[in-house]
């Protein structure tokens, strides 16, 4: 029986190896070569050791992209998406609030529309002559080009808008699993709404919060399309996420694919370290 289960796993493992592990390893291997897409070194496997990594650690653009990625992930995912998601999930549990389904539909729409479309939508929305400025003009605020004056802030808000649905679903499911009698008992004991949230809801969903953090950290670190379409690098690299930095190094002249691979490998290690921190936290919460 056990053997048959193992046999069944083979196709899946094969796929994972072919399409995940092998390309990832290949990326690491390339990062130690001087390979480029064009020119004399095109597709040439000449090993140059750690040169790409040393260059990376001396590249102010790389550190800028690290900073942008951290800010972007911290504010758009860990603060924005998670808090808004939790807030909406709590809101939907309350009875007697109208328009809940409308809000849910809107939040979902942002999540399911293709990323390129979302990017262009935001590009048009935050444009100097876009809807955002039209709305603000009713408040007497002068139109500005948001993508130019506040590129990172706009990108963060766009990503909150885009990704909140996931946290909302996850938290909604978690809240459903909390037995109602706990709240009833607390109410009988005279606990206020805040006390109930703090002492019942939060501890009981804390492991879900950490799982949510793990997932949205991974996803947000690898966000590319939305921001690439909206602002690209942004003014002077203001929205040059690590992914965009990597893209520009690999797929724009001079097409240094090995340098891009080094950047991707290094970032993989950084995200991995973050995940370990979360997993450690998850363990503590569960104990």
């Amino acid at each position, binding site marked *: 029986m056990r053997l048959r289960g193992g046999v069944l796993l083979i196709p899946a493992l094969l796929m994972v190896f072919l399409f995940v592990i092998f390309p990832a390893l290949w990326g690491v291997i390339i990062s130690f070569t001087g390979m480029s897409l064009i020119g*004399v070194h*095109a597709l040439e496997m000449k090993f140059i050791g750690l040169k790409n990594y040393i260059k990376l650690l001396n590249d102010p653009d790389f550190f800028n992209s690290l900073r942008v990625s951290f800010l972007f992930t911290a504010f758009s995912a860990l603060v924005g998406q998670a808090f808004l998601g939790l807030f909406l999930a709590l809101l939907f549990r309350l009875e007697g609030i109208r328009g809940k389904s409308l809000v849910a539909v809107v939040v979902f729409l942002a999540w399911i529309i293709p990323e390129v479309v979302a990017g262009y939508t935001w590009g048009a929305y935050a444009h100097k002559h876009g809807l955002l400025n039209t709305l603000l003009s009713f408040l007497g605020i002068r139109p500005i080009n948001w993508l130019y004056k506040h590129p990172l802030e706009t990108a963060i808000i766009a990503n909150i808008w885009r990704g909140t649905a996931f946290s909302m679903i996850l938290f909604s499911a978690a809240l459903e699993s909390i037995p109602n009698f706990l709240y009833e008992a607390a109410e009988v004991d005279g606990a206020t709404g805040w006390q109930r949230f703090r002492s019942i809801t939060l501890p009981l969903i804390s492991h879900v919060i950490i799982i949510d953090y793990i997932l949205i950290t991974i996803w947000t670190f690898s966000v590319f399309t939305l921001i690439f379409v909206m602002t690209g690098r942004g003014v002077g690299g203001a929205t040059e996420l690590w992914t965009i930095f990597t893209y520009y190094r690999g797929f724009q*002249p*001079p097409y240094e694919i090995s340098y891009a691979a080094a950047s991707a490998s290094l970032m993989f290690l950084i995200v991995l370290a973050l995940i370990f921190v979360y997993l450690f936290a998850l363990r503590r919460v569960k104990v």
Partner: protein
Amino acid sequence: MKRNTYLKTLAIVLIFTLALILTPQGISEERVVLTIEYGEPWKLPVTWALEIFREKYPEVDIRLIMIPYGIDYNAVLAVDLAAGTAGDVFGIDSFLIPEFAEAGYLYDLSDFVKEWPEWEKFSEPMRKIVAHKGKVYGIMIDTDVRMIWYRKDIFRVAGLPEVWQPTTWEEIIDTALKLQEKKEEIMKAMGVDEFYPIYVPAGTKWGEATTMQGFYMILLGADKDPYNRLYDYEEEKWVGKSKALLRTFEFYYDIYVKHKIAPVEYNFVPDVWAHHRKTFAEGKIGMELGGSWEWGEAWGPTGIAPVPEREKKIGFAKMPGIKGGAEGERKWVTISGGWAFAVNAKIPEEKLKYALEFLKILHSKEIIAKYCAEFGKVSPRVDAVEVEEYAKDPYLTAILEYVTFTDFRDALPGYTKVSYFVQKVTEEIITKGITPEEALEMYYKLLVEEFGADKVITYPLED
């Protein structure tokens, strides 16, 4: 029993999927399939050529990979070639030919052109631009020149002459400053809510266009030959510091930082190309450095941002040297690039014949002339003037003069990196306001880091 059926079904599905994945594309591979990869701007000539090709060679199937406007064609092509999925025949920006040839991506067409009598109809620079180390790797389909575009109607509002030809840089900046003074009136007359007197592409978002439309147009007229280039052909080194470079950075500094008469933010919008065409058409820009194709591709009746009665509203002028030639530099400056079609080095033997036949048709006198006339591009073939559509076009006739003093970029291996440094440094100037001297220092350092100090030459900054 049930479990067994389940397993069997699963196995069958798996085998089918694997078979589908592993089968080389289709079993009906008897017919030759010729794949052509090109950007949307070349849709018309490719379509015309295919009409003729299909009639002549009905045994060949054609597969088209058209990369639409708004997508970086060069990036797609580079990746497709590296991955081995590029077309058998493809369009290529001529400046990339050396580095693509070095990479072994391009089929050597030297023997083909030797036996092709029409090769002689291409002007000499057009035969040179597609060659690398003595071998021919592509055939030009169009070329271009660059100039100052300006709005006659805006000049009228500002009380400036509609027929305008500056002879020095100073004159350009003075005119721009005059437009700046009349900004409110211009905005009212044009019905726009913002106006910038002058626009020169800068920064990394524009990519190669920053270097070609902007930087080279200034650099080539900034000092006398050969001190006005990015590369020193005698020493075979990149130029790290020169008076010409300093003056060029200064030009950017003056219009973007000192006088603030150029739009920094236009260089960072999601689609810089579409945006510059639209804003110029709307009357938000007084003058700009740009390419000759814009006349048809952007502002023509079938263009991206049509300007009705463009002859009355849009004018163009030659870019002068810094003092108009008074200090030994060039009187007029322009630079040409353009696109070629090339054959994939990995093309299978049985397709090669058809690929070459397709090139012959695509680069025939009629198709090149008709296409260049339609888009206002300069024909790489000298006999295009024999075709009526081309000869009767007053615009094309007018820019023929530019071809007499045109130049080409220093497209050697390594050029794409140098070009990127130019983009980066101009971005620093316009966004951070670094001085021309700081910009020069930064540029020099980038070159030395990349190529090593022994591959970089510096010229004295004082006479």
